[in-house]
């Protein structure tokens, strides 16, 4: 068991190292030969595979893909996002999710029965909610609020980060966000579109969580980030406690 664990960490280290190394730009030839498959944001041109977006190269056995470092949020099916109601129509709500298109929340995608005349009492213009993308078509994004953890946002704070840094904020299998959650005693919902909802009992906790997320956001390229964040959380938590004692 121990051996396998060590192997895993070595592999992970190698992966993270190579990630940091190669940043690619559009038009750069990233692989040659027919036995490599082009993944996200790459195209095949004759025998070469070319990057089409500015980002970090991710090479696995046979697949090469580019992980974007900047740019707008591109919606994918299954993503949990935080949206702002833009408008009400007969059949549902038009929602701004910071994507190239507005999303649509159908009336029947709400977990309860709603009369058309009472739509504005559920979601009115400017309200925020957590939704899930269940379909992405050509020029349309469909949302649902049926599911655990989805629904209207009533209190707490919302912060905005670069959507390309969301995977780092969540961490591997949610490790990073778990750390911040336990340290700050807050409920945190990270939308894949870069909006983050923090809800805690005290405003100070919420602000602490915001600070922690900003710390992660500023240090996304640093190696061994999880440990650094642990240290940071310990330090800042202690200092805040000290201040309480002084008072």
């Amino acid at each position: 068991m121990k051996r396998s664990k060590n192997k895993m960490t070595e592999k992970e280290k190698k992966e993270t190292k190579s990630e940091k190394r190669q940043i690619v730009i559009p038009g750069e030839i990233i692989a040659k030969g027919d036995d490599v498959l082009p993944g996200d944001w790459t195209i095949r041109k004759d025998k070469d595979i070319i990057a089409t977006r500015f980002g970090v190269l991710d090479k696995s056995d046979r697949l090469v893909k580019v992980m974007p470092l900047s740019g707008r949020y591109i919606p994918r099916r299954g993503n949990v996002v935080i949206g702002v109601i833009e408008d009400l129509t007969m059949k549902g709500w038009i929602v701004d999710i910071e994507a190239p298109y507005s999303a649509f929340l159908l009336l029947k995608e709400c977990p309860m029965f709603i009369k058309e005349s009472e739509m504005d009492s559920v979601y009115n213009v400017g309200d925020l909610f957590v939704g899930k993308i269940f379909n992405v078509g050509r020029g349309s994004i469909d949302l649902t609020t049926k599911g655990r953890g989805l629904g209207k946002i009533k209190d707490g704070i919302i912060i905005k980060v670069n959507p390309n840094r969301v995977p780092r904020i969540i961490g591997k299998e949610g490790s990073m966000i778990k750390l911040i959650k336990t340290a700050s005693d807050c409920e945190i919902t990270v939308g894949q579109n870069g909006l983050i909802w923090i809800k805690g009992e005290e405003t100070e906790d919420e602000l602490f969580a915001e600070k922690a997320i900003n710390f992660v956001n500023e240090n996304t390229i640093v190696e061994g980030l999880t440990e650094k964040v642990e240290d940071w959380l310990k330090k800042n938590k202690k200092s805040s406690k000290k201040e309480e004692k002084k008072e």
Partner: protein
Amino acid sequence: MSYTKRSDGRKMDELRPIITKVGVVPSADGSAMFAQGDTIAIASVHGPRILNPRHQQDPGRGLIRVHYNMLPFSVSDRIRPGLSRRSQEISKVTEWALTPVVMLDDLPGTVVDVHINIQQANAGTRCAGINAAALALAHAGIPMKEMISAVAIGKIDDKIVADITKEEEDYEEGEGATDIPMTFLSNSEEISLLQLDGKIQLKRLKEALEAGKKACKEINKIQEKALKESI
């Protein structure tokens, strides 16, 4: 007296010193500054976003829209702010130069807005603008087939020179000055913009294109470096 020595002491195929910076406008989705000697261009990219008014939308693909603008203080004689015939023409020409590289087929009905502002001008502003726009588009995460670089090649008297300045543009002795802005794509080396102001023999034009290809390769390397070092 033929033109044997350039007024600023450069070699015939030498570019002016280039300074680049990516991510200069925080509120934009992507931005870049490109300075080529005294010519400074800042490009910012917003989008892709839904194009309004709706009748301008293309249901088949996303569009790119360029707004080129020279700031009033960019030249020694203050220029009137706002649209002019020249700025509209350069906007359109830049748009056509950038269209072949961007891949917006998956985003029908959207637009990518590129705003190019010339802070200071000393010839070659449309080329500096295109170079800045290419950097800004890449920084904004717009899918692109390849990078694009632009350079203004000139024929001063009977000499082919790279990256001409305003002083050279106004040279009147001998055969006079010809200004040829051109853009080359980074991989395929295709030309997406070629303008000519003046007169030139067909043979010399081929020579000028070769010089342009070489200069664009140099600029492309600088662009690549700028993007890779911005992280």
